[in-house]
């Protein structure tokens, strides 16, 4: 055969192979590129959803109340779909077009999470007319058997523990911090209790000295109180935050001239009856209906209620109450009990003699709901789920560092959060795929993202099923929400300070310039009437919609009056809020594992400001266990907030 023929044959063989191969490779490359593009689009839309949620919660005093939260989440989900459809150039069409590709959006909250995903509407009704099956409902609104998108019931970060030999059978609900709720049987006694858990009676935890409590070198006493102040619109009001809701004191609301003198903590206090108390309601207006104010024509109970609100605003001692209640709860939970008169949330004082003995609780006591056989959750389960055993067997509440990031408790808390999310989410995504043509699995969430989910309020969105050439897309995006009142993190407290030029600023507690001669000095209590540790959310600008006739006023709640009576907002520090040049980095392999260890050796002024702010905000934050029990506690008489402000007529 001639050389020419050989080459022709060679070409005939090689050319198709090369063409097919190159086509295949470029196909793969194309799908990978589309996949990356989609990843970025999904991340951007998830960020939009978080932003929408933040905006709604900041400008809404009820942003953390459950029903309002559900509304805010639904609004965030709808923002997500709008954003996603415009990212995918479907804007203008039906915005639901992307819904068939989104298997789930998870909104993690402080003590559990919501899944927004498609579900089958199981509306059942008795037909009005059995003959023609006609319905009495408007079926255009809701119809049985339809697939709809919506929030599934809230899932708590729960774990059940059973160990007959230790007489344990109870459930612990974990949160993003050291707040836990215990419900169940200990020593055959039913216990329902909750609180912030700390190590007690050691240097890393809370110590008790007489009636005072000491944490990280700061002493909290019953007699120290604050009067918080912030602007609403144009006026500076005193306020107190109770169960996530701010109550403001208006000194000139009622047209009343009388006064009332009472005795509180040994001092006589005169309360003018002109005083009104309001909160900002969901329309953005001032609402004075919470109390009736003081008047001799009111019922005694109404007056007493008002006076307690008044005392709570003028003599706020949330910081002390926080550490006191945390100490008492921790003593019951892990310190062997023995607090006389201590009642749990059901009002029961006949609690186990040695407390709840949580220090004896081991990770191997964890079981699945409804199962009596031990070790289930511990050894378990399918490949998709990280089981608890992987973390090892240890006593969950042992060690002296509960409340800190290095503790066993922290490790187990994260394991439970991860376990709870993984189990429910795999089911949710699997049931989504049962209605789709392809089989979907939950994508693997990276360890970095898990770390974020276990410590922050987050949105995680899952998108799958879009054809991207050689395969189908299956990806997720997780974005954290660091601006919310839902969960008070140790980094959520900013410090009010004065810089070298005398400007008033706010900065992070781990700003290295704080309390340095060439840096900032913490504004003292004597100047403000309150400790200068402030929740970072208070520095966000707000809208005052109380006067509908004029334009909405945008204002900064945290402002002060400078010389010449000019109202000036506190400015964010350039070294820690705007920039990060002087921030001592905390966590993640840095010198200090958490804020508490950083503050250990900090100047006392800074520590006092920080811990008072931190404890005050936590004690005043919304908690589902305290719902509507501001005044007298729950129906079992369990006290909360205002019950700590007892006075003598």
């Amino acid at each position: 055969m001639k050389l020419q023929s050989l080459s022709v044959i060679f070409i005939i063989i090689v050319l198709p192979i090369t063409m097919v191969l190159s086509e295949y490779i470029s196909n793969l490359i194309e799908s990978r590129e589309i996949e990356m593009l989609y990843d970025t689009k999904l991340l951007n839309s998830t960020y939009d959803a978080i932003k929408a949620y933040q905006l709604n919660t900041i400008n809404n005093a009820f942003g953390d109340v459950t029903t309002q939260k559900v509304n805010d989440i639904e609004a965030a989900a709808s923002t997500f779909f709008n954003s996603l459809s415009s990212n995918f150039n479907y804007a203008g069409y039906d915005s639901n077009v992307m819904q068939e590709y989104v298997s789930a959006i998870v909104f993690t909250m402080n003590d559990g999470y919501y899944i927004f995903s498609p579900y089958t509407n199981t509306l059942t009704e008795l037909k009005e007319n059995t003959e023609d099956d006609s319905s009495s409902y408007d079926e255009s609104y809701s119809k049985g058997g339809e697939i709809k998108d919506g929030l599934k019931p809230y899932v708590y970060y729960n774990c059940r523990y059973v160990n007959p030999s230790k007489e344990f059978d109870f459930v612990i609900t974990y949160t993003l911090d050291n707040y836990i709720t215990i419900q169940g049987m200990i020593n055959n006694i039913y216990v329902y209790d909750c609180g912030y858990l700390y190590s007690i009676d050691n240097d890393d935890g809370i110590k008790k000295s007489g009636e005072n409590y000491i944490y990280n070198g700061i002493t909290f006493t019953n007699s120290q109180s604050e009067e918080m102040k912030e602007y609403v619109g144009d006026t500076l009001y005193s306020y107190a935050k109770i169960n996530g809701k701010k109550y403001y004191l208006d000194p000139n609301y009622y047209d009343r001239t009388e006064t009332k003198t009472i005795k509180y903590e040994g001092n006589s206090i005169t309360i003018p009856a002109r005083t009104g108390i309001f909160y900002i309601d969901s329309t953005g207006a001032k609402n004075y209906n919470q109390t009736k104010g003081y008047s001799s024509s009111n019922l005694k109970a109404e007056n007493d209620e008002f006076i307690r609100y008044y005392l709570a605003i003028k003599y706020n001692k949330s910081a002390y109450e926080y550490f006191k209640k945390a100490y008492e709860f921790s003593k019951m939970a892990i310190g062997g009990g023995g607090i006389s008169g201590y009642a749990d949330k059901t009002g029961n004082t006949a609690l186990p003699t040695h407390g709840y003995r949580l220090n004896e609780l081991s990770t191997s006591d964890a079981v699945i709901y409804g199962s009596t056989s031990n070790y289930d959750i511990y050894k378990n389960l399918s490949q998709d789920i990280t089981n608890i055993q992987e973390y090892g067997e240890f006593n969950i509440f042992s060690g002296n560092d509960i409340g800190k990031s290095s503790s066993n408790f922290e490790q187990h808390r994260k394991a439970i959060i991860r376990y709870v999310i993984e189990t429910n989410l795999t089911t949710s995504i699997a049931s989504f795929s049962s209605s789709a043509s392809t089989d979907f699995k939950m994508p693997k969430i990276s360890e970095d993202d898990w770390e974020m989910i276990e410590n922050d309020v987050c949105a995680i969105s899952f998108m799958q099923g879009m054809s991207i050439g050689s395969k189908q897309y299956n990806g997720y995006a997780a974005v954290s929400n660091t601006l919310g009142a839902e969960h008070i993190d140790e980094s959520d407290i900013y410090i009010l300070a004065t810089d070298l030029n005398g400007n008033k600023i706010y900065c992070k507690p781990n700003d290295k310039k704080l309390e340095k001669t060439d840096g900032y000095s913490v504004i003292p209590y004597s100047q403000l009437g309150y400790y200068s540790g402030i929740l970072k959310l208070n520095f966000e600008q707000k809208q005052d919609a109380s006067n509908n006739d004029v334009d909405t006023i945008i204002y900064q709640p945290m402002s002060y009056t400078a010389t010449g009576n000019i109202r000036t907002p506190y400015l964010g520090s350039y070294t820690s809020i705007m920039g990060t040049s002087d921030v001592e980095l905390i966590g993640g392999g840095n010198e200090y594992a958490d804020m508490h260890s950083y503050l250990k050796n900090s100047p006392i002024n800074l520590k006092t400001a920080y811990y008072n702010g931190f404890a005050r905000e936590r004690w005043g934050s919304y908690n589902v266990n305290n719902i509507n029990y501001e005044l007298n506690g729950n129906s079992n008489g369990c006290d909360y907030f205002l019950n700590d402000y007892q006075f003598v007529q």
Partner: protein
Amino acid sequence: MGDSAITIVAIFLAAILMFIFPLMTMADKTDDATSLTIKSATTEFTNQVRTKGYLSQEDYDNFVLTIAATGNSYDTDITVMKLDANPAKKVQGSTVTIGENVYYVMYTTQVLEALNNTSKLLALSEGDIITVKVENTNTTISGQLRNFLYKVTGNTDGIIAAEASGMVTKTYGS
């Protein structure tokens, strides 16, 4: 005479078709695959920084290792635009802002310098923008072949480039 001329042409043709053509195709495909690796590494790196809210030496090293594993040398440009939006500057009674949302820019040298501190970390804030650009500096085999074969418009290096950017979604330490 005519026959041998044709034979010489045929040998040339055969050489091009049998060796250079497959070689070029394969080299091109290698570049494509490399380019894919670089693109996905760059996008992943950028998205990671965006969600984590910081750039650490470790992440940067891993990224450089991943792209270096493709056998080429690269020029990596990281540009961080830091948002300087002091929200407290907003004036009472109106939404007019003084000195609104200004960005100042850190280029690769400054970014790497910032990484060179005790914590090996550059903390970012929500709203910052990070852009990562990668481009090869050596001439790949495909580039060499192309230069050899159709050297009309000057040398090309066989560009493998990737770019990814986005807004940071989390403030570090919050």
